[in-house]
């Protein structure tokens, strides 16, 4: 493309970038400033305070030994969330995208699994509550029928031992459809001759999956991993409506702690510090995302 003047560029870009500058960039800078603001000038007081905080509803991490059932602190909860949710939703999405190719009505199955992405997350959170409800929920009923006693046959969300894992499993239900859809779209763009050739050579389904499909889908897998990690870090709505971080802080997450500092403690400085910690964590997948996009552009 030959060089065309910057005037046109400004004409087209300025309206959008004005809004972005005023309502996105400025508040980002404002949050950074607030997080360092202390009574005696700028400093790290807010950060130190939020990291050392030990009340269960606001703690980010317990540096002196972790209590055995949660609360482990919101930051740890987010990490546990990623550690469980990421492999489950990526693995399930990959395997399903692969096997659905040979399933009658595979596209209907896909549509159903994508439902979790369509419903508002608030409703998703309510559905999680509904599934675990002591009286009408399917999960406790199922475990009761299997003859299991104790917490598993009751409402998982109201016990510190199970509340976090209950939410994480619910989030698998909500999010797997996204990964499945990304992988299906990527699979469709693979030339089918590759898979057919391997079949003729007598490769087993598993060999085709692990040696051909997964390596070929690498770019899609990277994007899905990045999106999943970002989603896990930003998780808020479903926690807010289903447990509000409870019981006893056993299912808090960073975004919720940020909100609690803001709305309950009315401490904007500490709230901003938590927001920055959360944002720094999202920068890791964020920068990775930029590298993937740039790589894709160079290839074109």
């Amino acid at each position, binding site marked *: 493309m030959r*060089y*065309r003047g*910057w005037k*046109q*560029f400004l*004409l*087209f*870009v300025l*309206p*959008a*970038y004005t*809004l*972005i500058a005023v*309502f*996105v960039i400025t*508040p*980002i800078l404002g*949050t950074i400033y607030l997080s360092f603001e202390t009574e005696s000038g700028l400093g790290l007081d807010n950060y130190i305070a939020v990291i050392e905080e030990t009340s269960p509803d606001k703690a980010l991490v317990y540096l002196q030994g972790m209590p055995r059932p949660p609360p482990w602190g919101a930051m740890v909860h987010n990490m546990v969330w990623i550690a469980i949710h990421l492999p489950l939703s990526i693995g399930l999405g990959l395997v*399903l995208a692969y*096997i*659905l190719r*040979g*399933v009658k*009505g*595979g596209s*209907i*199955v896909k549509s*159903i*699994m994508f*439902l979790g*992405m*369509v*419903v*508002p997350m*608030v*409703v998703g959170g*309510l559905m999680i*509550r*509904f*599934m675990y409800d002591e009286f009408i929920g*399917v999960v406790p009923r199922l475990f009761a029928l299997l003859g299991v006693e104790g917490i598993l046959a009751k409402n998982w969300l109201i016990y510190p031992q199970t509340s976090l894992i209950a939410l994480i499993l619910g989030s698998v*239900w909500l999010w797997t459809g*996204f990964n499945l859809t*990304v992988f299906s*779209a*990527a699979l469709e763009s693979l030339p089918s001759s590759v898979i057919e050739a391997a079949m003729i050579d007598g490769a087993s389904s598993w060999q085709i999956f692990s040696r051909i499909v997964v390596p070929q889908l690498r770019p*899609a897998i990277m*994007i899905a991993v990045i999106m999943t990690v*970002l989603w896990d*870090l*930003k998780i*808020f*709505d479903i926690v*807010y409506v289903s447990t509000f971080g409870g019981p006893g802080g056993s299912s808090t997450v960073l*975004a919720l702690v940020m909100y609690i500092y803001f709305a309950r403690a009315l401490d904007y400085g500490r709230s901003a510090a938590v927001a*920055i910690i959360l*944002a720094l964590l999202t920068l890791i997948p*964020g920068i990775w995302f930029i590298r993937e996009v740039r790589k*894709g552009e160079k290839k*074109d």
Partner: protein
Amino acid sequence: MRRKISLSTVAVNLVAWGLAALWALPVVGLVMVSVRPYKEVILQGWWTLSGHFTLDNYVNALFNPSYSLAQSYVNSFIITIPSTIVPILLAALAAYGFSRFSFPMKSYLFLALLLIMAAPQQMVVIPLYMMLKDMRLINTFQGLILIHSSWGLAWITFFMHNFFEMLPREIEEAARVDGASDITIFFNIVLRLSMPALLSAAVIQFTWVWSDFFFALMFLISPDKYVITQRVATLRGQYYIDWGLLSAGSVLAMLVPLLIYALLQKYFIRGMVGWTVKG
């Protein structure tokens, strides 16, 4: 050999449909609870098909004077429609600028979009809260629309840019030779050719704004301003949970995105994942 293949096909079908059933279960269950008296659900379970079916829960949820879902439904539409149109128009302009013209440090301006896309909402809300207060826009629809519009710009610009990059330029060049201005070309030619992409972006932006909870929670304070997600989130009872009410509210809240998904699935999927696999 043949037999073995068909056996594994059966197994694969069973697994796939089993999972589909499991995935549909919460939605089906919630709908079942919503159309039956809650007392009956408690006694019999929602999975039984005998018993009464009624829309009482919906009437109760929609028109109860102390928590009018109908009002918050209207509020959601008032906020979501402009919050979809405004950013799409501005982002399409910006994306076109990025894709057709050059500017010093253009690539950095573009990369900034990607970083904004990754940023959590928590990163902006405190200063925004103060700004809106100063501008007397806190607890107003205009304020929330402004914020949703600005927040949506980054991803829509990125999305539309990918589309414009694939759009052939010959028609534009021909129009330029005929003396059409850049703005005319954009509105008369480019936007028309971009309808599928614009629709995809609109479907997703609409669904996201409709489903948003955090911005609304931060910036809409009085209950008569609540949007539907906020309303449903606060419906949970204090001492016992009335699932009849909650399920009806949930179904109403998800009805709009579900309808969009059902009617415009192709655009929905393209908007959600289309930009992840570069065409």
